[in-house]
């Protein structure tokens, strides 16, 4: 920082900052890219391995469960696991191209996509919540029946669900407000 910057000119103040870090060399960037790719591959291998373990576990559950409804739910779970394994497998062999998120789209488009993705992930739609509630019910039933009386689960499950739903509702509302603000921002014109 120099000592003769007019303090009422923010642009000069901004542009005269002392440089903190030097740029990375191509070799450094390549090394980092290689490390990132290795980490991604390792995570994908872990995903595939855990997926197969869950598949075996789910198959055993289907054989042991006495009633049809829980079996159907575990079967749905198996389908989801297979889809995840398939995606991980394809990602593992895909060429190393830039992901959609990092693609150099205009900043507002990018921000809107990120917000929309987050909103969809937490939005309170029954289409998304029903399978989650069903899976949670199965997990609670299986785990609680073995150790506690099932009555406790009847209290804990609704409380847990209510907290989860409230949290998701609050987050979704916040994200929706941000999306609305972004739309207003885009429409502001002369």
């Amino acid at each position, binding site marked *: *920082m*120099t*000592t003769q*910057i*007019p*303090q*009422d*000119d*923010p*642009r000069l*103040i*901004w*542009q*005269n*900052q002392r*440089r*903190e*870090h*030097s*740029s*990375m060399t*191509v070799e450094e*960037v*390549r090394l*980092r*890219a290689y490390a*990132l790719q290795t980490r991604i591959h390792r995570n994908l291998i872990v995903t595939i391995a855990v997926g197969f373990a869950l598949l075996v576990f789910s198959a055993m559950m289907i054989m042991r469960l006495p009633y049809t409804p829980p079996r159907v739910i575990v079967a749905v779970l198996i389908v989801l696991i297979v889809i995840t394994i398939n995606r991980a497998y394809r990602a593992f062999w895909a060429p190393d*191209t*830039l992901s959609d*998120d*990092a*693609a*150099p*789209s*205009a*900043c*507002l*488009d*990018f*921000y809107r996509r*990120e*917000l929309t993705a*987050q909103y969809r992930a937490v939005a309170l739609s029954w289409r998304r919540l029903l399978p989650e509630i069903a899976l949670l019910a199965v997990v609670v039933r299986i785990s609680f029946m073995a150790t506690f009386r099932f009555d406790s689960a009847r209290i804990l499950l609704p409380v847990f669900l209510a907290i989860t739903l409230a949290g998701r509702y609050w987050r979704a509302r916040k994200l929706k407000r*941000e999306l609305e*603000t*972004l739309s207003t*921002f*885009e*429409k*502001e*014109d*002369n």
Partner: protein
Amino acid sequence: MPPTISSVSQSQDDLYKQTTEMYGEALDRLVRAYELDADKRRDLLQEIHLALWRSFEQFEARCSVRTWMYRVAHNTAASYVMRQRRLNARLLSLEDIEAMPDSAGPSGPDSADRIALERLLELIHQLRPPDRELMLLYLEDVDAATMGEIMGISAGNVRVQIHRIKAILARRFHAGGQR
């Protein structure tokens, strides 16, 4: 006009090297606007450099390298802000900042550049990603047409936003931003 790189035939590495030579300092300033912690700032800068290098694999010279560089850098940084959001305070828009009473006092003749810069950074860190991007591009002296291209908004919208930024900066830094 920003310097241009005739790039179609150039390799990814060459493009990266030339871009960081030309805009390395601007990138260094950009990360200050997104992260206060020095260690995390270095990590974010490296993340941006990596994203930039990888992005040049797709560069087809449909826009200037400067526009491309700012888009990649801002998008990477915005993504970073959104990941860190849970830990941060509520972010504001330019409109919110305009409506807020000015908490910082006027800078006296004995104020140091550092204090002025800190006030500027404090203001920038309160902004939501789109407003922050506009503010930074304005501070970097990027022209309105390029700002529109980087942000993906109309020239009229850029003018409205610049007017708002100038008003905020003028209020906080006396006659600053009135050029």
